[in-house]
């Protein structure tokens, strides 16, 4: 055995607030992985870094805004999308991304999510779905798979979760994909694609939360959850599955369907223009 070369600085350190590292996320937490994909996508994008803006709500995932060395806004729980809408419409030259959790975007923030998708606001929304409210300690939420446990579902979650891609499709988003923290290249690609695609883009990324979700559900650590994703992900192009089967179910051998669900070109929201005379 031998030491790796000890470094002081990471190649992406210029894009993150290195002075705040290590971040607060637990060992094995997937959020950092997705944040890295985002940093890489920015680096690879055509837009100048200064014009990239990130907005988060509240939650572990919501801390992403605080770790990106961009103009970054850590708002209130559920309101990242409308805050981002204000930024984008007031200055359309900005490339505005929203990074937040499943609870933030789909529980308390659900109304803004569906309406922004309907209006097709030109935002890139990355939803880190860890099947629970990590920040507050592992409560269930609208993405918790049926039967899973959480601190507010000690007898198992009885509700069916949202199938987020299906929901966003029904609302009218221009781009919708789902991946997991294992699909690091696809996540990076889709984020970068979303930057340049007009309209509302929604990228759901399933990510390990060993402390909030794993602990209640017999998943020992982040690594184990990563391996589960690797083993159970099936690309929607390779499978004939109904909308209902797209719902995530972690019991038995139900596959996790990933891929690009929607890629269309409805016109993005733009403010009305008066007829000039």
């Amino acid at each position: 055995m031998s030491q790796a070369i000890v470094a002081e600085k990471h190649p992406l350190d210029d894009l993150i607030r290195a002075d705040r590292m290590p971040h607060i996320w637990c060992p094995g937490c997937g959020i950092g992985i997705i944040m890295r994909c985002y940093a890489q996508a920015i680096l690879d994008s055509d837009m100048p870094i200064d014009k990239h803006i990130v907005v988060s709500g509240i939650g572990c995932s919501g801390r992403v805004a605080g770790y990106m060395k961009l103009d970054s806004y850590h708002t209130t729980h559920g309101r990242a999308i409308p805050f981002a809408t204000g930024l984008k419409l007031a200055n359309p030259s900005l490339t505005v991304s929203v990074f937040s959790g499943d609870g933030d975007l789909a529980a308390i923030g659900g109304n803004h999510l569906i309406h922004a998708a309907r209006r097709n606001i030109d935002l890139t929304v990355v939803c880190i779905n860890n099947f629970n409210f990590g920040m507050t300690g592992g409560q269930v939420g609208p993405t918790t798979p049926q039967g899973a446990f959480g601190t507010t579902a000690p007898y198992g979650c009885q509700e069916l979760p949202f199938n987020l891609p299906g929901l966003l499709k029904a609302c009218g988003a221009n781009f919708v994909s789902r991946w997991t923290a294992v699909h690091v290249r696809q996540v990076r690609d889709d984020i970068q694609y979303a930057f340049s695609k007009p309209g509302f883009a929604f990228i759901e990324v399933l990510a390990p939360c060993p402390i909030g979700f794993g602990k209640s559900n017999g998943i020992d650590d982040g690594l184990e959850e990563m391996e589960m994703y690797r083993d159970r992900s099936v690309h929607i192009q390779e499978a004939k599955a109904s909308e209902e089967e797209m719902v995530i179910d972690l019991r038995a051998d139900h596959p996790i369907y990933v891929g690009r669900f929607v890629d269309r070109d409805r016109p993005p929201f733009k403010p009305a223009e008066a007829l000039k005379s």
Partner: protein
Amino acid sequence: MKKEIRISGFGGQGVALAALVLGKAATLYEDLEGVMTQSYGPEARGGASSADVILSDAPIAYPFVQQADVLIALSQEAYKRYRPLAKKDALVLIDQDLVQPDNSDSVKAIPATRLAEGLGRRIVTNIVMLGFWTSSSGLVKRENMEKALEDSVKAKTLSLNLKAFSTGFEYGRTRERPHE
């Protein structure tokens, strides 16, 4: 009588459970007043964490430890962080394999983790430590601590926990003295 007790370590070592058992024993089975507090929140994840108990024979107004009379340290970081905040002459109990005390500091040491591993499960290190404290301090009766333990842990882990407690207690009663 008023004693401020801080049990410290890193996340996952069960410092809160230990404090809870201690508090229960003192308040429910001895006639002491007691309050337990603990640090919360994401910024408290990782790094040193602590759970505090104040015991007193009079009502306790201010519930937080100001200067600990007892410090139980289960990690070096916890020792480093909390030792200066405790009384100079505090009773300091350490896991001797995890904590290297300052030279000037007189501590009571026990290989708690090793003893717990000997019992088969490292996670009862906290309970070993609790046994050790019980015999070292004499503040709370052994049987009351054991009753509190019964109330606090899952039935199927009770015997393991009692064994851990007893191991710590006996270690303190029989072998610890010299270190003082």
